[in-house]
């Protein structure tokens, strides 16, 4: 075990925090000079590698993104691994390399961690938990700042991560164009702040997809949300997979797409920044005191509710 930790894990993070890890103290001592954001998440994904990413990339981006969503720049991560006996060393190395490379890109260091190995069959090849601390660059970003008339922007097209994982699990032959949107959102959030945008609230649309996020925003603010279907970008591949399984693209997970609420004054500026990172970014709707729940307006003028997803996603049989 010691050999694994020293030669494989420390080695993987040598460029991103190695000097602190190698001290092998019971805790890492960190330097931060501003208010602090702190977040944790555990990552379980099957298969471990998929088009556009892998569990290591998600484990780094997931926590970096959660921190970015409150206007904070991640500085340090912890990385806890739960490994199934028999996991190939090559697999572990590839996952760690991917995790480290995302940290390097975002300027984040991995400074502490933990490794457990469980007997075969007790965990599904590997689970990763990452926690992160971050410097808050922009205070007051959160649901408490949501207000009537706030504009909602979406940073890209939706449902790709969910569709990729689903089709990989189904051993589907999918189009080469369909890749998970898994990526770090730190860059785009920094660019927004630098451009002078004051985000009211940001949420990445991970599990439960866009539908879950919009419902959370509505519930937390006590305001209605009205969005237009025509403005929400969905790729044809995602639409096709949804049709086959009977899923709603609004409920599929994303790993690098977020909803941004801004004051009307900031809308244009924010959209310009988002578009530099993703041409599918769009203004999709707004918060309103006059409505309740999340309402989706169709292209032909009818309206229906977008309910939060319920339970497991199971394919239809009809």
């Amino acid at each position, binding site marked *: 075990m010691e050999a694994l930790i020293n030669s494989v894990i420390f080695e993987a993070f040598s460029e991103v925090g190695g000097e602190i890890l190698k001290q092998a103290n019971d805790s890492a001592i960190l330097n931060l000079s501003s208010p602090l954001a702190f977040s944790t998440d555990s990552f379980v994904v099957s298969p471990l590698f998929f088009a556009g990413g892998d569990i290591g990339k998600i484990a780094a981006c997931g926590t970096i993104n959660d921190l970015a969503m409150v206007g904070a720049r991640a500085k340090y991560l912890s990385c806890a691994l739960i490994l199934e006996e028999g996991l190939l060393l090559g697999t572990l190395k590839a996952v760690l390399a991917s995790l480290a490379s995302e940290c390097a890109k975002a300027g984040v260091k991995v400074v502490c961690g933990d490794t457990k190995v469980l007997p075969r069959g007790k965990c599904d090849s590997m689970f990763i938990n990452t926690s992160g601390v971050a410097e808050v660059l922009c205070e007051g970003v959160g649901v408490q700042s949501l207000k009537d008339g706030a504009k909602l922007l979406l940073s890209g097209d939706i449902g790709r991560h969910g569709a990729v994982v689903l089709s990989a699990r189904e051993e589907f032959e999918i189009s080469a164009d369909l890749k998970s949107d898994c990526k770090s959102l730190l860059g785009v959030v920094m660019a927004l702040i630098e451009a002078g945008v004051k985000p009211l609230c940001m949420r990445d649309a991970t599990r439960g997809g866009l539908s879950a996020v919009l419902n959370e925003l509505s519930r937390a603010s006590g305001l209605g949300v009205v969005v237009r279907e025509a403005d929400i970008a969905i790729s044809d591949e995602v639409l096709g997979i949804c049709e086959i399984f009977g899923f709603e693209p609004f409920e599929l997970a994303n790993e690098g797409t977020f909803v941004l609420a801004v004051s009307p004054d900031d809308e244009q500026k924010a959209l310009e920044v988002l578009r530099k990172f993703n041409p599918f970014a769009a203004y999709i709707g707004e918060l309103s005191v006059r409505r309740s729940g999340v309402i989706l307006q169709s292209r032909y003028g009818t309206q*229906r509710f977008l309910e939060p997803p319920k339970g497991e996603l199971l394919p239809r049989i009809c």
Partner: protein
Amino acid sequence: MDLINDYRNSELILALAKQIKAEAATLSRPINIMEICGGHTHSIMKFALGELVEGVVNFIHGPGCPVCIMPVSRIDEACELASMQGVIFCTLADMLRVPGSHTSLLKLRGLGHDIRALYTPLDALKIARQNPDKNVIFFAIGFETTTPMSAVIIQKALDEGVKNLYFHINHVTVPAPLRAIMADKNVNIDGFLGPSHVSVIVGSNAYKELALEFKRPIAISGFEPVDVMASVLNLIRQHKRASFEVFNEYKRAVSAQGNVKAKELVAKYMRPCTFEWRGLGEIDDSGLCLKDEYVSIDARRVFALQKEQATKEAKACICGQILRGVSKPPECALFAKACTPNSPVGACMVSSEGACAAYYKYQRRGA
């Protein structure tokens, strides 16, 4: 042609809505159209198509959801099998959450029984191969769409000599309950939206006799909004000129004969039998069961089930009336109160194709 976007083209949908309204202008009352299939119920609610034809078309939801029509007695059987020692119990879709008389498969899974919701029925075979020391029971459900898949698995299991895979067949057919509904004097329906995926297998000819005998037009329709609107338009036109044909709007997938090979494969292993439908009662030859020569893989016969189980339906639940097309979900006293998708009282709220779930999901509150 783009098989999704073209069938969701808003100009086309609006033009069809306009035509429907124009045709219906000379009718003395709204036309009652029953969608037999739960997939249509969901499309109608999801795309809010009712709003486009408000006042001229009254959509009535039919019995076409394989989960909703499952009688409590069969769910009790499933629970009994799933609780047995050494069993891996497999089924599809939302079946896990449907309440039986005393418990549900989901609750049993929480107690530690090995119960799995499969993504594809073929996984049942894989699970049986991987667990030779366990009895794997596949609780097969669904209309004509899913039956051929069950037949394929039976064939593969027999060919490969897999000895530990058993089948609890709960397949049902569409034409039989359709006949029961048409014959019901309390049900006032002017035309039917015929199922799309089911018809790919059974073929459009399967409904011809019914349409003529009961003098009701049927339009086999795809699930997309343009499909549904075009089919509704056809039904109104047929209604006005009193014609009772089977209109095949879903020609891109449905032929007159259907999928003959699939039907033959099903007939090799299964035979028609009486099935007790939730809400409709027992209907002769409306279900399928394994033929006698396959008794050794028939879970109902291999594992002696307690025959006279007392089954009980939730009292206030009006699923039965909804499946017969005489009531709509909001008319149920429990709807969106005691009964929600998170704590469903009846099957219609459980299944993603159920009418109560569709109303709850898309139209629960006034917009």
